[in-house]
């Protein structure tokens, strides 16, 4: 009896420890997802215009799952210490539901990250940047979002187009319909700007003189934050779920060992 008594005590200790870790990870997950949802890089309008912003949905789920994990871990600790079968059964069922939601969030984030390719952003930029005639309010909202985001991207990251300024030459675009090629081979935001926000040398920019225009593409500036976002939600969630799996198995075993 003494041996199994010790064994039970060790199991209890392990389960309490496991639940503490789950609680802390829950808080971390909530904090991480709040950070992503706050969109510090201002890239959300680009996703909104693709009508596929599910990596944001995954982050929203992550916020609530993180909080639920924290609350349930406290319930779990109480249940383990009191060795109360009912409490532990409630804990297990609720944890399984939370597990399912977090699983959905991870899979969504990972799947939709694969959807965001350079061609997707290129097509969207050519279709919507500085589009002058919009069909309806929704179209207008998305167009304005894309235009503002690209203007900010090109100014802040000193880049032009998705792969480079040649994007504007290789393909027709909504921009080209309003702005002719001779005056605007690429948007003026691709020019190197002075302190007041106007091009240092507009003619040199139009000629494409190195040093007077941004010759690199903006795709890295877009994919970097999006990758961090998607992998942060997906893989951190996966790690939490693996740990939770072990704790839940341990809890089930412990539950079966408690005298009713």
């Amino acid at each position, binding site marked *: 009896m003494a041996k199994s008594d010790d064994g039970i005590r060790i199991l209890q200790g392990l389960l309490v420890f496991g639940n503490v870790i789950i609680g802390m990870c829950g808080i971390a997950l909530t904090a991480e997802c709040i950070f992503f949802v706050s969109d510090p890089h201002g890239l959300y309008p680009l996703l909104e215009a693709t009508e596929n912003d599910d990596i944001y949905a995954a982050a929203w789920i992550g916020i609530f799952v993180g909080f639920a994990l924290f609350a349930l871990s406290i319930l779990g600790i109480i249940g383990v210490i009191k060795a109360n*079968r009912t409490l532990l059964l409630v804990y297990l069922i609720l944890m399984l539901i939370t597990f399912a939601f977090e699983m959905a969030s991870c899979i969504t984030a990972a799947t939709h*990250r694969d959807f965001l390719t350079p061609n997707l952003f*290129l097509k969207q930029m050519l279709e919507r940047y500085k589009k002058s005639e919009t069909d309806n309010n929704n179209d207008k909202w998305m167009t304005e979002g894309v235009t503002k985001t690209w203007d900010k991207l090109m100014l802040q990251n000193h880049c032009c187009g998705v792969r480079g300024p040649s994007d504007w030459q290789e393909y027709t675009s909504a921009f080209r319909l309003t702005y002719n090629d001779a005056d605007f081979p690429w948007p003026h935001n691709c020019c190197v700007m002075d302190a007041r926000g106007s091009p240092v040398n507009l003619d040199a920019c139009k000629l494409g003189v190195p040093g007077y*225009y941004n010759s690199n593409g903006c795709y890295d500036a877009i994919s970097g934050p999006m990758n961090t976002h998607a992998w942060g939600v997906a893989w951190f969630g996966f790690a939490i779920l693996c740990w939770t*799996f072990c704790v839940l198995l341990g809890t089930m075993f412990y539950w079966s060992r408690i*005298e009713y």
Partner: protein
Amino acid sequence: RPHSRARHPGARTMLPLLLLLLATARALEKLPYTPTLASPSLGGLTTTSTFVLEQPRCVFGQHSDAVIWLVVAIPEAVPNFNNSVGPGTPERAFQGFPAAAPAYMTLNTTLLNYPCPAPTGEITVLRVGSETSCARDDTKPTCNGPLPSPGPYRVKFLALEGAEPVAETAWSEPITLRTAQPFGSIAATGGGHSPGMIALTAILSILFAILLAGLVAMVVFWSSDTYSGSSTFSKPEAVTVRRYNTHHVYDQPAARL
């Protein structure tokens, strides 16, 4: 009749002299220079309606009074090109290019703007097609307007003194501009599934399945437990029956097991 005989004494020698002058004036100097596109390091070397040429520095050295024009033509107009047709005529008007005017003349300047030698470090180029304001203005036939199609085009420089062509360069190689593809042709459908995502989905599904199975087993175990009524191990805080062996057998009221 007043003009039947020469009035002035030296008129006989003057006439051949006049003819000689006329002949030399008509001689067109063919310079060995070929106009070329500027350095490929320029991002906008050719766009869909403009292109950038090197300036003809140190080419027209002897004709300091001439006005140097750029001639842009479609390749079909090159063999029959007439240097005497002046700029500004309908046959050479930009607005009629290329249908009514198979060649046009533009970017006129004096040799002062092409000093020789070219200073190092400066970019000396000519951008053909940069003036958009006069492209549709028929009163400005020498407009340097944007080119209407991807080409190809051939160019040369022509020096005119007054209305007389005095020097010309060779015709350039055909210059073709860029063609823009329609953006609808970009294939933006998804990038396929990365192996990481597949692994993640598979592993999580398996873990969830195991947990569900465990939960079901637990519930079945519990309900069978309550039916049979036997409990397996005691709760930690219940009083445990401790059995210890003592060699003192005198104090045993009831047999303890």
